[in-house]
């Protein structure tokens, strides 16, 4: 039944949207901007409300008289403002209901979307409470009807039980304080609504809160014309000795009021309560036995970033959530701006306008990122429109400025870039060294972004490896090196207060060094712990550096862990697998972030263990997690391989 309703709704929305696309153009189709239109109308309500409040007088007699004066004597401004205030408020209800209805019929309210859904329902309640409260202010016949009706409705509750209506039973029962109270309520509710709207919107990556200018212009102008043609008027002064027998009701805000008298207040409470409960529970209806979980992983090019997609999440949402500047506009399968190419894997294309993505395009691997959800691990490519935060992936040429052996099999190589080449990167990212035959070898930055004087790489010798053998046997200071970068999504997240645990395996220390030095540089106060797991003591090639950091920074701790200590190491520290050492120290990881970098084997062993101890997927950073086998096999330049110089083929 639910599916049937949704399919019918989808059919209706798609057909109306197609018609609107022809009329307005995809970019200015109001149905693709319902949320932001509601925001726009809210600003109109707020601005006009402030103006009205300046002239509104909070008294039994003054309330009606001041609103009347504003409406008639100042019709050209105050009257228009009042009308705009009312009509924009009505538009908010219409916009919100359409917005909610669209998300419902397209099934965009389950799984991770539950928070937006619930917060939206709360906003809707606040809009109604505030709107009904607003109709009490002018103290005309409609205000009398609404006030008395509200009191009668609330009085049904045992909490009030007939006491509220006593305040409106006689002409003298209402006093001036009522209007001060109502005014403060009206303003307070609006501010609360604004705060909740912000929360509602913040959870949606890339959410737009401003509609395109043509929509604002058309809508604003239309409302002004409506206000001039049919200005909002009062319906005569309130008189508690008589009944407002006939009222011009605002059916957007007050449709339940006639029901108070046709049914009973108790039945209306039942209707409103049951409707709210069903709408609130919708994200979990019908109930399912298994929990929602992370679904698939996306390798997104040209960023070369691996993103975990949540169940039911579109490709666009996954990308935006991870900070990728994926191009999009309508987000509803109507404009085609987010069209991308699926290089590997399969998707469910979702519901969209057929002419925007044809069957031929689908066959050619095209997909609309705003509608498509992954059916497997994916590799996809989009055409970028602008670089992320000014960080541009580009080719660079550098010269080897210095080389130093940090251990028998680890070489520190410092690269120097030309003076006019300002390479910007994030702590933890990596570069691809480009070999003459087009092959690539990936190495993480071991330097923090703020450092000048070139970039440092820590390269581990892979026996038989072409490039690393070259580094250890033939590379000389002054040699020219070409590379591309910066690349990768394994970088320090600075938008959290959670303590951070860094897990480095062997030369996985390099990007961790970059991140920690950056954290110390910017003055992180968060608790930070580094677990560096190696086989024997000789593999801790820069152990004195984290020890020095621990001495200098009280919020940092260093824990070296040896898996196979040699007798000559005389090791008295931690032994075993590095992730097991972490779990011994932190049995509950739910309040931590983990940055793991090392061999794919180490990370793959650690990830399920961390997850089993409460680590959220959102707090776990390592591009090597749960990779599609094809990605690990095919893409040498992807994040997952070679981090810290752990090249499979050197």
């Amino acid at each position, binding site marked *: 039944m639910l599916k049937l309703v949704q399919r019918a709704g989808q059919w209706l929305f798609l057909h109306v949207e197609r018609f*609107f696309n022809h*009329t*307005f153009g995809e970019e200015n189709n*109001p149905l693709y901007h319902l949320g932001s239109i509601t925001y726009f109308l809210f600003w109109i309500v707020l601005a006009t409300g402030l103006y009205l409040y300046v002239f509104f007088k909070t008294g039994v007699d003054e309330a009606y008289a001041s609103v009347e004066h504003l409406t008639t004597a100042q019709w050209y401004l105050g009257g228009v403002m009042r009308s705009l205030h*009312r*009509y924009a408020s*009505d*538009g908010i209800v*219409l916009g919100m209901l359409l917005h909610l209805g669209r998300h419902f019929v397209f099934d965009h309210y389950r799984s991770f979307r539950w928070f937006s859904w619930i917060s939206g329902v709360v906003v809707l309640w606040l809009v109604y409470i505030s709107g009904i409260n607003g109709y009490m202010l002018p103290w005309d016949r409609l205000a009398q*009807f609404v006030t008395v009706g509200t009191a*009668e409705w609330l*009085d049904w509750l045992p909490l009030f*039980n*007939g*006491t509220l*209506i*006593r305040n409106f*039973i*006689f002409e003298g029962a209402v006093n001036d304080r009522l209007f001060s109270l109502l005014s403060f309520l009206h303003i307070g509710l609006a501010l609360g609504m604004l705060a909740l709207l912000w929360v509602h919107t913040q959870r949606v990556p890339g959410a737009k809160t401003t509609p395109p200018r043509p929509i604002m212009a*058309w*809508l604003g*102008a*239309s*409302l002004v*014309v*409506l206000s001039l*043609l*049919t200005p*909002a008027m009062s319906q005569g002064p309130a008189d*508690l*000795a*008589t*009944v*407002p*027998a*006939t*009222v*011009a*009701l*605002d*059916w*957007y805000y007050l449709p339940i*009021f*006639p029901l108070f*008298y046709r049914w009973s207040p108790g039945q209306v409470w039942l209707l409103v309560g049951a409707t709210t409960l069903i709408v609130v529970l919708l994200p979990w209806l019908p109930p399912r036995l298994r929990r929602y979980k992370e679904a698939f992983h996306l390798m997104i090019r040209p960023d070369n970033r691996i993103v975990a997609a949540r169940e039911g999440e579109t490709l666009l949402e996954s990308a935006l959530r991870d900070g990728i500047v994926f191009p999009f506009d309508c987000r509803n399968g109507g404009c085609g701006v987010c069209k991308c190419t699926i290089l590997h894997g399969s998707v469910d294309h979702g519901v969209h306008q057929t002419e925007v993505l044809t069957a031929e395009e689908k066959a050619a691997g095209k997909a609309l990122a705003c509608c498509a959800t992954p059916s497997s691990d994916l590799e996809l490519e989009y055409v970028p429109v602008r670089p992320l935060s000014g960080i541009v992936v580009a080719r660079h040429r550098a010269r080897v400025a210095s080389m130093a052996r940090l251990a028998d099999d680890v070489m520190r190589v410092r690269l120097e870039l030309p003076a006019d080449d300002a390479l910007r990167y994030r702590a933890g990212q990596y570069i691809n060294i480009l070999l003459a035959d087009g092959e690539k070898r990936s190495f993480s930055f071991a330097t923090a972004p703020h450092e000048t004087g070139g970039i440092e790489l820590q390269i581990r010798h892979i026996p038989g490896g072409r490039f690393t053998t070259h580094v250890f046997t033939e590379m000389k200071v002054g040699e020219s090196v070409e590379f591309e970068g910066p690349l990768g999504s394994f970088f320090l997240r600075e938008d959290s207060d959670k303590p951070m645990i860094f897990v480095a395996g062997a030369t996985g220390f390099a990007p961790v060094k970059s991140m920690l030095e950056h954290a110390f540089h910017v003055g992180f106060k968060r608790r930070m712990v580094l677990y560096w797991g190696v086989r024997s003591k000789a593999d801790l090639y820069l152990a004195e550096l984290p020890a020095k950091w621990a001495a200098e920074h009280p919020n940092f701790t260093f824990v070296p862990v040896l898996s196979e200590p040699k007798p000559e190491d005389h090791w008295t520290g931690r032994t075993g697998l590095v992730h097991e050492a972490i779990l011994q120290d932190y049995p509950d990881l739910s309040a931590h972030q983990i940055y793991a970098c090392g061999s794919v084997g180490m990370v793959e062993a650690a990830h399920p263990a961390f997850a089993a101890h409460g680590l959220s997927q959102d707090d776990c950073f390592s591009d090597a997690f749960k990779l599609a086998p094809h990605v690990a096999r095919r893409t040498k330049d992807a994040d997952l391989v070679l981090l810290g110089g752990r090249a499979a083929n050197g």
Partner: protein
Amino acid sequence: MARVLRYLSQAVLYAAFVAAIGYLSTSPTYVHLPPDEALIKLSFSHAAARKEACHERTPEELAKLAPNMRAQTVCPRERVPVTVEVVLDGEPLFRVVAPPSGMAKDGASTVYRRVAVPSGTHRIAARLSDMPDGTFDHRAETTVALPPGHVLVIDFDAGKGGFLFRS
């Protein structure tokens, strides 16, 4: 030409949108009370008598209490419910038994009822019981002329003599 048509179409659709807003903002009008009817509201808040009178504790009862709780006189707080009946032109209009409010049932009983009646002149009789024995110790009777759309409030205030008919 195509552009002009497109703008015209947009104007029509926006006009339709705001027309829908404007229309439902005031229409259709709602008839809350038919033109030949008036309204009678029964509304009051009144504290009835205590369910039990104060009494002296016996020495045995006092002995069972903790020393700091041994008050000689005990006055139960609970009140009896208020019963009110209204008769309109000889026909029963309301009969309400309103329990006292509060956790200890020691608060006032509150009553609110509303009913639409034909406009015109009516004979109204009301009586109220707030005593433990259930006797109707407050009575009043009046004749009121209720024009269409007018409200008659039947209030009760013991301090002002009992029933008040306000129209």
